[in-house]
């Protein structure tokens, strides 16, 4: 019995591949499994190629997995477009549409001999049982239930619920298609059984959601009452969630005329005293950067979510990348520090979004949540989260004596000044993008500018001591260390587990706080490190460069960077760790030579 299976399926837009993935994930959750599902599309509006990966496990899942255990191709042309996103290995069972006419020993996968290749007349079975080829995805689900033991009951239960309104006839047609798939699998058993063990949490309550919905829910939980934004892939679902829910909490949402107006309205709402938010992706970040500078100098709390995609410009709008790191840290003009946080999964985007609001409110600053397409659109099954563990911070407001001769930008010990808002008697002031004295009145004075720059940057010092915004795993004294963030962190966590199991002496640092760079945390981490990798999905090795700006990295620490849409697999990282180990051994041997 296996504890873990990775499915990858591809077809053309109308094949219902993603909806099959959804059904599989939901069925798996109903059967108590942990699951992660990622979707990937071409950028066509309709049609074009679409794919999904579904990983199912009896234990919690850290990432969408490496090579596929099961590949399903409804046609080869579309399957091959996903390249490294759907990697087939010698351990993969490949199932494909027989109507493609390609013999089992001639499938177009170069340089790999899969474990088993099975051509299935999927379309013909759909047509025969359901009267339409549109039931192909249900046949596939039946095959999966038959061969891998997942969803035999739960899949149809889900489909029945989903289609209930469309009539009994359609439900029955799907049932027949499902049964046909399952029967085919039973009649053609796999050479090597790949059934997944029964989950011991069968029957427990599970949540299923994606990173964007989770981010928006966290914002509302944190008290966010205003969202201003503009549609942009892959962040739009955050705004959609607000339009569905924020009204219920007395809040409002504005789909603005452009990215600038979206963040502008959010800045205004924050000035008016409400927690507010905007979300976007790379091109929108560029448009919003002037407003981010304004929020920094006016010291207004604001959360900006950047769901990264491949860039620059339109780039790869439907694929993930981490290349907005520099933009997040540096895109405002002037001398400014803007905290940047990065979630690593759907589960922790809840916590990180709440942190973003807490930091924004406490420090009176814009905060960027650097999400990415993979986290945003991947679905995870989650155990229920106890929300009472999260503390909510609200901006410090002037009271009593503060309101006698109120000074909005008053110098204080911690550089944070109580902030009023319109409607508060005694708190009136001028907020401005122009440099200002403590009262808010405009100034040209160089000395005031110096003092205010000090105030606006020194206030962040305590943030760098937030050890809880960093995660170190593995052997704390290991000579080999790797650093990864965002969706890549999940891949590295799994790789670390694999490497530790092989006996490698390694460790991993996952920063949730990317900026300001917490020098102390990194220096502690690298103290024992002789060889290491700074891993990210960028072309320029942005994380490595950002760290090197702030820290004297050990000489043996190098970047491992790769452009978007070429995901890292856990096995890639393990292989990289092995080569670090042999380098380390070689250099130790070198050290044994007599030295001057």
């Amino acid at each position: 019995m296996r504890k873990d299976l990775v499915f990858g399926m591809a077809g053309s837009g109308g094949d219902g591949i993603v909806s099959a993935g959804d059904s599989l994930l939901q069925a798996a959750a109903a059967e108590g499994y942990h699951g992660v599902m990622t979707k990937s599309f071409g950028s066509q509006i309709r049609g074009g190629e679409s794919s999904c990966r579904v990983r199912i496990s009896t234990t919690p899942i850290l990432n969408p997995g490496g090579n596929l255990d099961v590949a399903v191709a409804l046609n080869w042309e579309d399957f091959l477009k996903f390249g490294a996103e759907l990697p087939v290995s010698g351990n993969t069972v490949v199932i494909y549409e027989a109507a493609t006419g390609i013999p089992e020993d001639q499938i177009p996968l170069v340089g790999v001999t899969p474990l088993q290749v099975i051509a299935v007349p999927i379309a013909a079975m759909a047509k025969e049982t359901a009267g339409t080829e549109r039931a192909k995805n249900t046949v596939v689900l039946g095959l999966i239930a038959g061969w891998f033991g997942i969803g035999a009951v739960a899949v149809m239960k889900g489909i029945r619920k989903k289609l209930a309104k469309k009539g009994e006839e359609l439900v029955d047609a799907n049932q027949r298609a499902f049964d046909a798939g399952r029967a085919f699998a039973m009649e053609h058993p796999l050479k090597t059984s790949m059934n997944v063990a029964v989950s011991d949490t069968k029957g427990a309550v599970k949540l299923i959601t994606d990173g964007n919905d989770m981010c928006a829910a966290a914002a509302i939980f944190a008290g966010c009452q205003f969202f201003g934004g503009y549609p942009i892939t892959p962040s739009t679902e955050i705004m959609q969630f607000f339009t569905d829910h924020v009204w219920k909490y007395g809040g409002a949402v504005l789909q603005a005329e452009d990215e600038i107006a979206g963040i502008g309205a959010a800045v205004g709402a924050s000035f008016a005293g409400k927690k507010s938010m905007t979300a976007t992706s790379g091109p929108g970040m560029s448009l919003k950067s002037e407003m981010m500078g304004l929020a920094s100098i006016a010291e207004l709390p604001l959360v900006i979510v950047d769901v990264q995609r491949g860039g620059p410009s339109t780039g790869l709008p439907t694929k993930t990348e981490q290349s907005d790191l520099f933009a997040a840290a540096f895109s405002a003009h002037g001398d400014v520090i803007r905290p940047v946080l990065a979630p690593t999964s759907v589960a922790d985007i809840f916590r990180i979004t709440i942190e973003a609001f807490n930091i924004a409110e406490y420090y009176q600053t814009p905060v960027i949540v650097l999400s990415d397409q993979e986290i945003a659109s991947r679905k995870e099954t989650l155990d229920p989260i106890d929300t009472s563990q999260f503390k909510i911070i609200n901006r410090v407001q002037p009271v009593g004596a503060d309101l006698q001769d109120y000074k909005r930008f008053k110098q204080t010990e911690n550089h944070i000044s109580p902030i009023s808002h319109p409607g508060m008697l005694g708190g009136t002031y001028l907020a401005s993008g122009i440099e200002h004295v403590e009262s808010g009145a405009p100034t040209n004075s160089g000395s005031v500018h110096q003092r205010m720059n000090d105030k606006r940057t020194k206030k962040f010092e305590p943030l760098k001591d937030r050890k809880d915004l960093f995660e170190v795993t593995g052997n704390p004294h290991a000579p080999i260390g790797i650093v990864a963030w965002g969706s890549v962190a999940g891949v590295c966590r799994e790789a670390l587990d694999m490497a530790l199991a092989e006996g490698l002496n390694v460790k991993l640092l996952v920063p949730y706080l990317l900026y300001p760079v917490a020098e102390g945390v990194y220096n502690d981490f690298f103290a024992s490190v002789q060889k290491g990798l700074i891993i990210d999905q960028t072309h320029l090795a942005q994380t490595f460069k950002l760290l090197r700006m702030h820290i004297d990295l050990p000489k043996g620490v190098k970047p491992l960077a790769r452009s978007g849409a070429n995901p890292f697999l856990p096995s890639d990282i393990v292989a990289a760790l092995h080569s670090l180990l042999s380098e380390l051994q070689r250099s130790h041997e070198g050290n044994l030579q007599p030295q001057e």
Partner: protein
Amino acid sequence: MSTTGTLEYTPKDYKSDLKPIWCPGCGDFSVVQGIYRALAAIGRPPHEIAFVSGIGCSSRIPGYTTAYGFNSVHGRALPIAQGIKLANPDLLVLAAGGDGDGFSIGGGHIAHLIRRNMDITYIVMDNQIYGLTKGQLSPTSQKGRVTCTSRFGSLENPVNPLLYVLAYGAGFVAQASPTDLAGMAAVIEEAIRYPGFAFVNIQSPCVTYGEEGQQIKGLKAISESLAGLGHNPADRLAAMDLAQHYGEKMHLGVFYRNPEPPPTYGDLVKERQALLSKDALPKERILDLFIKK
């Protein structure tokens, strides 16, 4: 705008201690006086007013009042004002700025504020020039105008701010000028009292870079009172007809006031909030939305 002031306010209650940076004789001095008077007539306490501007000479104006001010970035007063109004609909929200701020860099925002009909009053101090950056062509400069960025004369037609907002369906549109301070204060007051988006274009001469014909004397020569002409401000087509003479004549007063103001965006938001609030899960249980049974 609800106008239930209980205390008596005088214009000087709205005047701050900041000394304006404007050139002596600048039309904006009159505009700020007009705003003080209008606010005193309405009687909302300063701390219940949010006054937002962009960048430019005239955008300094919020700082010269005792309201909550926001002197923001170039062209973006209106988005910020809308966020403020949505966050706290009970505030009196004013936005102001120059013709460049409103009709050039920020020109894309006006149409959208108008179609949303938020209860915000927008005052444009129109001087047909970029003053703060020392005399460049502006979106309302006349064709042929010679400036430091149009040495051989402008090749562009000016924007007509009045027709622009009328065409998008603004519910209240008026024009004023320092040539008639009492009239200006009255028009601003009426704009603020109008329940919905209200626009006031103020011909505010630039004494440093403005042309001779655009100074007080020149403006007086082309000014004409709309009331004097017997214009009916409920007649939108007549208003558009008159507005075509922007640049040749200076009509003062109310071009258009919707006689049956529709609900504002804020009204509709309140309605929606009230309708949906009963569906709210307690915030601490918001993740229940994701439970799959």
